[in-house]
C-alpha cells in the first residue's frame, strides 16, 4: 500500500495531507510566538517606570520592512494563482519577487541589528548618562606609550602572539549622542523633546559602565532580539523552502503538477504566517 491523499483531498475531511500538516505546524507556531508575546506583556507590565524604552528602533526602516513583507505575501498568493491558471512562467517571475523581498527584508533587518550593536550607553561616575553611537575609542598600551584607535573592545584587552602579549586599556571613548540625567529621560522622552546630538569625549576614568544595545542591555532589547531573531529564522527557513520549490524542485511541475501546486500552497501558508507574526511584531516592538 502507498500513502493516500498526498495529492487529492480525503473525502470526509476535504483536505490533503500536507495541508493538515502545515496547519498543525502553524498551530504550534502560534503557541510558540504566543508564549513569547505573553512574556513580552508580562515583562513590560512588570517593568518599573522609565526602564522600558520607547522609540529606540528605526521606525521608517521598520515600516519599510513591513511593506516589504506584505508585498511578499501578495506575491506568494499571486504566484500560486498563476499556477492555478497553468501559467508557470508568470509563477516563476512573481515568486522570484517573493524571494527578492525576503532578501531585502533580511538585509534591512541586519542593518538594524548592526545599528543596535553600535549604539552605546555610558553611565558616568557622576551618575549622568550619555547615549548614542560610539564613534571612537582610544586605547593605551601597558607602558602608556602607544595610543591606538580601535573599534570598542571593552575596558581593556590583550593582543599579540603568546609570550609577547600586549595589554591595552581604554583611555577614552567618543560618543555621538546626548547626555541625560536619568534612564527615564532616555527611555521615555517627553513628547516633542528632541535631543540635540553632539560628540562627547568621555575619559575612561569617568566611566562607571559602558555597553551597547545588544540583547543584554535590558529586557526590552532582550525580547526584541529574541522575537525578531526567531522571526528572521522563520524568514530564512521559509525563503529556503520557497526557493527550493521555485528552483530545483520545479521539475515536479512536469511530472505531478497538482502536487506541485499543493507544495506552493503549503509553503505559501507558512510564508503568510511569518508575515502575520510580523504584523504584530512591528507595532508591538517599534511603536508601543
Amino acid at each position, binding site marked *: 500500500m502507498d500513502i493516500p491523499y498526498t495529492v487529492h483531498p480525503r473525502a470526509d475531511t476535504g483536505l490533503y495531507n500536507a*495541508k493538515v500538516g502545515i496547519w498543525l505546524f502553524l498551530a504550534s507556531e*502560534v503557541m510558540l510566538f504566543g508564549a513569547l508575546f505573553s512574556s513580552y506583556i508580562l515583562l513590560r507590565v512588570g517593568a*518599573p517606570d522609565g526602564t522600558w524604552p520607547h522609540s529606540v528602533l528605526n521606525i521608517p526602516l521598520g515600516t519599510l520592512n513591513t511593506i516589504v513583507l*506584505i508585498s511578499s505575501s501578495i506575491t506568494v498568493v499571486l504566484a500560486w494563482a498563476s499556477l492555478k491558471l497553468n501559467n508557470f512562467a508568470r509563477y516563476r517571475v512573481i515568486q522570484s519577487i517573493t524571494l527578492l523581498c525576503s532578501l531585502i527584508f533580511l538585509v534591512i533587518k541586519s542593518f538594524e541589528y548592526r545599528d543596535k550593536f553600535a549604539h552605546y550607553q555610558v553611565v558616568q561616575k557622576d551618575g549622568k548618562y550619555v547615549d548614542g553611537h560610539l564613534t571612537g575609542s582610544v586605547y593605551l598600551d601597558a607602558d602608556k606609550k602607544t595610543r591606538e584607535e580601535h573599534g570598542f573592545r571593552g575596558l581593556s584587552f590583550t593582543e599579540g602572539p603568546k609570550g609577547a602579549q600586549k595589554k591595552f586599556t581604554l583611555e577614552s571613548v567618543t560618543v555621538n549622542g546626548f547626555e541625560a540625567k536619568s534612564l527615564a529621560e532616555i527611555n521615555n522622552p517627553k513628547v516633542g523633546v528632541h535631543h540635540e546630538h553632539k560628540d562627547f569625549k568621555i575619559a575612561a576614568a569617568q566611566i562607571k559602565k559602558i555597553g551597547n544595545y545588544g540583547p543584554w542591555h535590558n529586557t526590552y532589547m532582550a525580547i526584541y532580539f529574541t522575537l525578531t531573531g526567531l522571526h528572521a529564522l522563520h524568514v530564512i527557513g521559509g525563503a529556503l523552502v520557497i526557493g527550493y520549490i521555485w528552483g530545483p524542485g520545479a521539475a515536479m511541475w512536469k511530472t505531478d503538477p497538482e502536487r506541485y501546486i499543493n507544495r506552493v500552497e503549503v509553503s505559501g501558508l507558512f510564508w503568510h*504566517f511569518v508575515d502575520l507574526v510580523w504584523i504584530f511584531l512591528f507595532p508591538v516592538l517599534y*511603536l*508601543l
Partner: protein
Amino acid sequence: MSATTPDEVHKSVRKYLAVFIALIIGTVITVGAYYVHLPSVAMTIAVALLIASVKAFLVAGFFMHLISEKKMIYGILVATVFFVIGLCFLTIWSMHDFPANMNHSVTGQM
C-alpha cells in the same frame, strides 16, 4: 482551496489585490497614529493593536483562505487560540493576584 476554475481564480486575484491595498493602508495608519501622538498611551496601544488584528484577519482570512477553510482546520485553530489566551491571561493574572501587602514589583526595590 478557495478557487478552482480559471474564472474564480481571476476573481480571487482581484480580492487579493484589494486586501494588499488594505494592508498597506493599515500600515500607514498605524505609523501615522504613532507620529501624531494620540492623546493617551492607552489609545495608541488600542489603535495599533486593533489595526494589527484587522490586518492579521485579512492575511489569515484571504491570503491563507481561512474564510473558506474546512471544519477540521477551524477546530484545530480554535483550540489553539483558546490555549494561547489561557496562557497569556492566566499568567498575567497570577502575577497580579498577590495578597495585598505583598509587593510584586520585579525591581530591586525591597
